[in-house]
């Protein structure tokens, strides 16, 4: 457990035969040029269906926008939109990201969805996590990538969540889920501190005894063993002093700070899934600026995270991806909100991202809408995630997204 990824790589270098076992892409990622460390990926998952049209705003598409007509009360005012390019702009809450776009650090894939999209949160969340439009895969696409890496000596991925997450689930070893580092200490009785080691030893013996027993008991025993190892590992994690200013009172901020501390610690944890709820805006979406304020919480937190990455020397090695299970209806509803839609933008942010609109926005012409009144898809989510798997993580995208012919998107430098 005390083998860090870096040490692991050093040991690998002494065993050239080991390379033969690795897919070409992985080899490329691991053998990245000097100055470029192992690559990190942070996935921010906006739960509930984020209103993509009010995040990346098609205020002035060539051929007619219609945006203002669809969104009579909810449209971001033209005077407030932050123009990017081609009649596309950002929600004013994302001011912090505008400069990154122009500096070439923010790629935006637009109109992202999959064939026959689901309007159910549960089904759509599963599909975005499995990367399987048929919703049949039992594991997550990142979980399948982790399986390609092989079971690590200590966890390389984390679900920053109170519950298990499908995205990171697979046969690639133990992936912990947690939201607070300070929770990791073995509980003991303050009045009998001398007994602490005994309690812990007993618990370790209990979990070891149940390993391989099958069913829930074995699953819990494995998790318990992982917990004990993490308690030791996290005892070595140094504090990290942020240079960025994260918005207060947001679980995204705390999730990104936790991620930053673990990345900085260089303990082999590189892949993070951060679900962040509060986007199911069926009513009063902009009451007291609700959705725009969430956009600001997002943009400001991402900017602070990028500043921190820079101060830790990790900005070139880390990408942040922002997605949601679906966008919302093109039309606003009668309650000042929007109902479940389909296509939505995906943000790819970091020094290694190529700035710009990576894929076109769907036509907003009412004549072009689908039968159920949705914008037509222009980008398959498997191409977004597949490009990241192949070109950022160095994985085998064809095996991770079987049956899909990958179109590499211009997301990365």
């Amino acid at each position: 457990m005390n083998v860090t990824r870096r040490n692991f790589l050093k040991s690998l270098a002494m065993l050239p035969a080991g390379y033969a076992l690795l897919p070409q892409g992985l080899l490329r990622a691991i053998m990245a040029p000097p100055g470029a460390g192992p690559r990190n990926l942070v996935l921010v998952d906006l739960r509930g269906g984020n209103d993509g049209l009010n995040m990346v705003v098609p205020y002035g598409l060539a051929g007619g926008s219609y945006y203002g007509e669809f969104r009579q009360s909810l449209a971001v005012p033209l005077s407030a939109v932050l123009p990017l390019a081609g009649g596309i702009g950002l929600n004013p809450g994302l001011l912090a990201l505008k400069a990154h776009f122009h500096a070439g650090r923010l790629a935006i894939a637009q109109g992202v969805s999959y064939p026959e999209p689901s309007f159910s949160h549960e089904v759509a969340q599963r599909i975005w996590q499995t990367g399987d439009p048929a919703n049949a895969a039992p594991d997550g696409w990142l979980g399948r990538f982790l399986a390609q890496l092989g079971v690590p000596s200590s966890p390389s991925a984390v679900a920053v969540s109170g519950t298990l997450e499908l995205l990171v689930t697979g046969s690639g070893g133990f992936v912990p889920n947690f939201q607070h580092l300070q929770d990791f200490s073995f509980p003991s009785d303050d009045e009998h501190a001398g007994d602490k080691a005994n309690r812990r030893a007993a618990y370790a013996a209990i979990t070891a005894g149940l390993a391989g027993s099958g069913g829930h008991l074995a699953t819990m025993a494995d998790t318990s063993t992982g917990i004990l190892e993490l308690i030791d590992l996290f005892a070595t994690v140094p504090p990290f002093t942020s240079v960025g200013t994260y918005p207060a009172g947001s679980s995204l901020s705390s999730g990104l700070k936790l991620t930053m501390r673990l990345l900085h610690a260089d303990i082999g944890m590189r892949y993070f899934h951060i679900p962040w709820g509060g986007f199911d805006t069926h009513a009063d979406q902009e009451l007291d600026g609700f959705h725009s304020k969430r956009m600001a919480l997002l943009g400001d937190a991402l900017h602070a995270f990028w500043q921190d990455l820079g101060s830790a020397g990790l900005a070139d090695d880390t990408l942040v991806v922002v997605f949601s299970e679906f966008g919302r209806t093109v039309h606003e509803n009668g309650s000042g909100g929007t109902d479940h839609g389909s296509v939505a933008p995906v943000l790819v942010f970091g020094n290694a991202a190529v700035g710009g609109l990576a894929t076109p926005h769907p036509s907003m012409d009412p004549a072009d809408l689908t039968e159920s009144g949705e914008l037509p898809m222009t980008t398959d989510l498997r191409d977004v995630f597949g490009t990241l798997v192949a070109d950022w993580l160095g994985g085998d995208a064809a095996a991770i997204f079987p049956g899909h012919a990958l179109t590499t998107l211009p997301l990365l430098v």
Partner: protein
Amino acid sequence: MTVTWNAANAAHLLRRAGFGATAKDVDKALKAGFEKTLAGLLKPQQGKFKRPKPVDELGELQCWWIARMLKSKHPLAEKLTLFWHNHFATSIAKVESPDLMVLHVGTLQQHALGKFQDLLLAVSRDPAMLVWLDNRSNFAGAINENYARELQELFTTGVLDKDGQPNYTELDVVEVARAFTGWTLFEHHFAFDASGHDFGTKTVKGVTGALDGTDVLAILAADPSTARRIPQKLWSFFAYPVALDDPLCDELAAVYVASDGRIRTILEHIFRHDAFYSDTAQRALVKSPVEFLVAALRLLGATLHGGYPSEIGDVLTELGQALFAPPSVFGWKEGDQWVGTSGLLARNTRGEWIADARGKNHPVKYAPSKLLGKTKEWAALDAPAVVARVLAALDTEASPSTVAALTAYLQADDAGQPQPLVVDADFVDGKLRGLISLVLGTPEFQLA
């Protein structure tokens, strides 16, 4: 089907129909016999739903419900209310009013054992639900689809039927939403706003007419997918998880249809079923966080002081089940989902918090010595006997390796060296608490 009424089966029934079976509970049930025990569990709740004193914070609400579960003479009604709270998952995060949340739980409890269609109607008119899924702002010509969609996806038919075919279309969502237009709130009470209702013709599941919400609920409650899915969820919650296409669900669906969707009849069928007492069912479920907390306290004979509401709130949040605040309309995910890294870690941390509870400022109060029986018998107890008593008191079926580890723990001094065990006051306040803490954290204790 005749139920073999032995201690194991009696404990199993009490564990599932309530919150952990103490030795006393099991004795009582064995003396009463199966029929009388079952009738007692299924007996309608006596008296009116007792509301708490006005509360203004979430922790107070949570304490109030936990205390009900701890002390209730109708544990099944409380357990079932908890089931419905996850089925109709509604959160104070959006509803905001503690008062409406209490009313909501009252609605669930009032109809918990009744006809499913009645429960649906009550929930559809429940003020907290009208806020939570926005039907209060669903009006003719300006519909809001939120309730209409979740009513079908989560509360009745589900997305897919047993053969994997869609149960409804996007058009159905719109039609159902139209039927519920004008079901709104006036001064925090349900109100039908005729001027906002769409009296036009709608078609839902092949039925065409000027349907309103009540008509739609009748259609959805009678739908074969609902008739299968509701008992399937009840079986999975009380017995063991089954898939929709499991043949067992044919039988359960028939009970739903024959009883006109009476929950009590379905539960009685489940609790009389051979499979309910089979090895597949016994100790096969993972306790929910609320079950973990309530069972630990009940089995220890602990009382909960209501003076620390925010701490109880923290406990529930850490364990992963903040009552009145499910993470989304899907509710909480069950089974192994309860015991991921953070959940299992919290069960250890809070297990220790319970086991080592001392003094007036701790919300939990209990006497560890009670687990060992009479003081004069202590001298005769060796380590294996102490472990056996504590495991029995905590209703835990431990594997031999766990028993060995716990026994070794009792005999280890602070240097980890084995020492003869002496049961005295120091032991009771030290090692015994440590043993309880460890048992509450074992994988075995997490099973129900």
